[in-house]
């Protein structure tokens, strides 16, 4: 093939340009730490990167949801524990009052403490978590039970809460929801619903027993004693359920943090450039570039012109 001077020059320029673009590719990889800059560099990597990033962002949101679910459920559990303590104390008082040796005055005094326990119970039923009534189902802005001691409706439900339908759900995984609240009826009305104006079973028990105590009727108190066990059993059932949810949340948290590590790892493997490899490649390209520069300088320096007089 006949080779002309301009061909040498233009070939050399093209080769230099190619070298430079390869160097730029590795430079970019080093600068950004990523294997690709545009989807067209490697569409598969790009699509996978998009998916993994979305997954990671979802997992991070689920982790936040889990944290919020956990604190809500924990707060519920604390309130339930308090209710448990009150029931225990109330049962002790009732057992004491049921004793026929107590004088009516003594029984009446026990009734005073019982009243205080009832008031405390009503306030627990209206516990708020970050400003929201925990046991009011979806109606988190409304008190569950009337807490106005002067009102004749004191201790009665103020709202309707459907125990089945008013379950607040948080999403803690793709298509994985957890119920984080306990509806008032479930605790206070033996698993039933709450209905406006109706006195819940637990409050009714307190009301009845206080009436008996105030009347100094030991037998009357005794006849109600076994109902405390019914209430305590119901509470235990609810607490077991809440405990199970706590477990599930803990397990999900573990799984999510594992998933996050895995996904982040996959993400890095998918899109991150290996610095050692990239630097090696860059160095190699630099060498090629140097030698092509040197070669170019040699090729175009001499022609026949230099030898003619």
């Amino acid at each position, binding site marked *: 093939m006949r*080779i002309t001077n301009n061909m040498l020059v233009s070939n050399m320029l093209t080769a230099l340009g190619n070298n430079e673009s390869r160097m730029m590719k590795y430079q970019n990889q080093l600068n950004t730490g990523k294997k690709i800059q545009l*989807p*067209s560099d490697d569409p598969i990597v790009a699509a996978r990167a*998009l998916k993994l990033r979305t997954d990671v962002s979802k997992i991070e949101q689920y982790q936040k949801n889990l944290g919020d679910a956990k604190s809500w459920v924990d707060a519920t559990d604390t309130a339930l524990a308090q209710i448990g303590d009150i029931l225990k104390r109330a049962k002790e008082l009732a057992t004491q009052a049921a004793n026929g040796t107590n004088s009516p005055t003594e029984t009446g005094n026990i009734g005073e403490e019982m009243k205080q326990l009832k008031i405390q119970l009503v306030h627990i039923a209206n516990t708020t978590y970050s400003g929201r009534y925990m046991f009011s189902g979806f109606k988190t802005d409304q008190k569950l039970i009337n807490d106005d001691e002067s009102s004749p409706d004191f201790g009665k439900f103020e709202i309707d809460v459907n125990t089945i339908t008013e379950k607040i759900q948080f999403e803690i995984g793709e*298509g994985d929801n957890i119920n984080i609240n306990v509806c008032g009826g479930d605790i206070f009305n033996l698993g039933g619903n709450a209905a406006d104006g109706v006195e819940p079973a637990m409050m009714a028990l307190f009301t009845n027993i206080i009436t008996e105590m105030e009347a100094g009727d030991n037998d009357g108190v005794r006849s109600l004693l076994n109902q405390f066990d019914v209430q305590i059993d119901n509470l235990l059932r609810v607490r077991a359920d809440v405990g199970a949810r706590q477990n599930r949340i803990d397990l999900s948290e573990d799984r999510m943090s594992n998933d996050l590590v895995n996904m982040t790892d996959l993400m890095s493997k998918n899109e991150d450039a290996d610095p050692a490899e990239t630097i090696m490649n860059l160095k190699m390209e630099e060498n090629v570039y140097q030698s092509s520069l040197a070669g170019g300088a040699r090729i175009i320096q001499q*022609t026949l012109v230099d030898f003619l007089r």
Partner: protein
Amino acid sequence: MAVGFSSYEIARSGLRVSERGLFVTGHNLSNVNTLGFTRQQAIIETNPYITEYGNNGRLLQYGLGADIQETRQIRHTFLDIVYRQENTIQGYWDTRSKAFQDVEAILNDPMGDGLQGVMNKFWDSWQELSKEPESLTARAMVRQRGQELVYYYNHIGSQLDKLQNDLNMEIQVRVNEINSITSQIAMLNTQISAQEINGDKANDYRDQRNLLLDRLSILCDAEVNEMQDGQVDVTLGGYYLVNDGQSRNLYVQANAEDGEFFYPKLEGTNIKVNVKSGILKGLLEARGEVPGIKGSTENGTPNYKVDLTFAIDISDGNDFDNLRDSLSTYINELKKSGLDYNIRFITMGATSDVYGKIYDKNNIDDMLADLTASNLLEADTTISDGSFKGLIDELTALNNAPTGFREDAKKYTYVFTNKSIDGDSGTALGDATAYINSLKSMGMKVSVVTDTAYADNGLPDGLGNPEAGWSVITAGTGGNLMDINNDLAGYESMLKDWSDNLVQTVKDALGNIPPSLNIVSDVKIKLNAMLNRMVNEINALQMSGMTLDGKPGVAFFDVIDSNYPMEMGNLKLSDALLSDNGLNNITAAKTTAKGDNTVARQIANLRDVDILVNSTGRVSIDEYYRNLILEIGNGGMEADRIAANQATVVKAVDAQRNAISQVSMDEEMSNMMKFKFAYDASSRVLNIIDSMMETIITSMGRVGR
């Protein structure tokens, strides 16, 4: 011949040839860096011989020196053709590759902060709202993220529009460039033919023309044909751009008929010139070979158009009360769907008429009133025999009429009849096939409600062909076949099914477009389909619940210009959200209870619901978008790779061309020496002859003087 003056001539011709040779060499060397210069060679030939008789009667021939035959360009025409073909392809792929890069830069996913991130944040805000449905902070975040999403969608939209417009303008610039090139070629044609008519070679004009043709080849797939007289004809898409000394310009036209976008046309005519490759074709496809009118579905506006025709045979005294009573169900479903529908009524039978009104979303309530007034069944102009063929003719007329069916609408016809296909006379299967073909050519789906007696094929006629039943028509066009004797509930569920089917079909068709080479317009179609499905689903969910104030939910997103559907550039948060207490109008609850998070959770979950259809089937929004990025990536990679390979090919061909045509300094230096020595030698010959002459003139005949 004895010593004479002709010997001088021989020597002089040697001198002249060598000197001219040096001229050519000098010209080559001077133009060593001239773009498009082809090296020239002085072609030397011997002068004619003279013949004389020798003493012994033999014929002797003597040469009379040398002469320059021509100054020839050293050029390989075949390689020029190959170069130009490859160059055209290179221009095409370079343009595509660049357009893909631009689109990638606009979408900025996955390595930058693109739409995916904005969508993630939007969905996350709904998750936060689902945890605290009554919290104004969470609501403010949802609105804020919604605003970001709207901004981002509109931003991408305007960027894509800008890219499309830039590409469109570039088409104009390139067409002007083609015009300038072709007019120069025509001028050079004239000059070359004028100079070459007496046998010369117009080498340097040819160089200029070749350079222009090379440049033209990267722009478009013009065909070049060299004539006997040295002029070239240039044709593009079968039309002459250059014919001898005449050039014909292209122009780009943008008018109402063709939309805002340019298409190259032949000057003085309305003929579209079909460009098949090169930068120009690359630009046309990158922009999208679409009309570009705002609202055109080819350029991305979601296609929600449906043309519905109810054809009702009233001749047989049928009781159509059921239909009338249940139509409102159908209409209510249609209203909710967000489709852009037109409804027509055609009555068949004893009196047959196109019912005078077309109903769309603006006067749909009139239709229900009209129907109640039994207007429909009292149409009084008799025009046809009520046969199915008559109906098809009517539909065909509507399809072709400018005010008839819309071109890009989905078309459905519902036939209510208590007869067989052609009234009471039998219809052969062959006729039915002809009906199906003409319906198919319109893209019409026909559903039929009829008596079961006419549903299936009947008994064979005398020729043994069975009579066609309605099932042939419905199966052939993809419609449904129903029993006319249903009760009201049956009608309602039938119409509900139809409307569900219709809505689903239209929605599914939005994002699932056939593969094409268009770049920006396809991206716009897909992004708009995604946006449209997403915001419509959110709006529907929003309206299914209750606001914080306990009122029925309102739309979350709205259009800016109500003449167009929701698409990029035409999206905003609804005014209800931005008004006073607007945050309360975000719907999180199904019920009036403030802690109800059902709707918020449904919306947060929407990202995992398969609400879109693409080439891989039903997919979620995230998957759809990912697929779009993958497609753009694949397209870009393909274009990059082919452009790079093509560059190698073009370079190789160019190298072959240059190997033949370019000036080599070493070679020219050798030539210089060659000619110089030849010149020296010829002058020596002249010297010798001169001294011979001197001998004759001054020394001869002096003996004995």
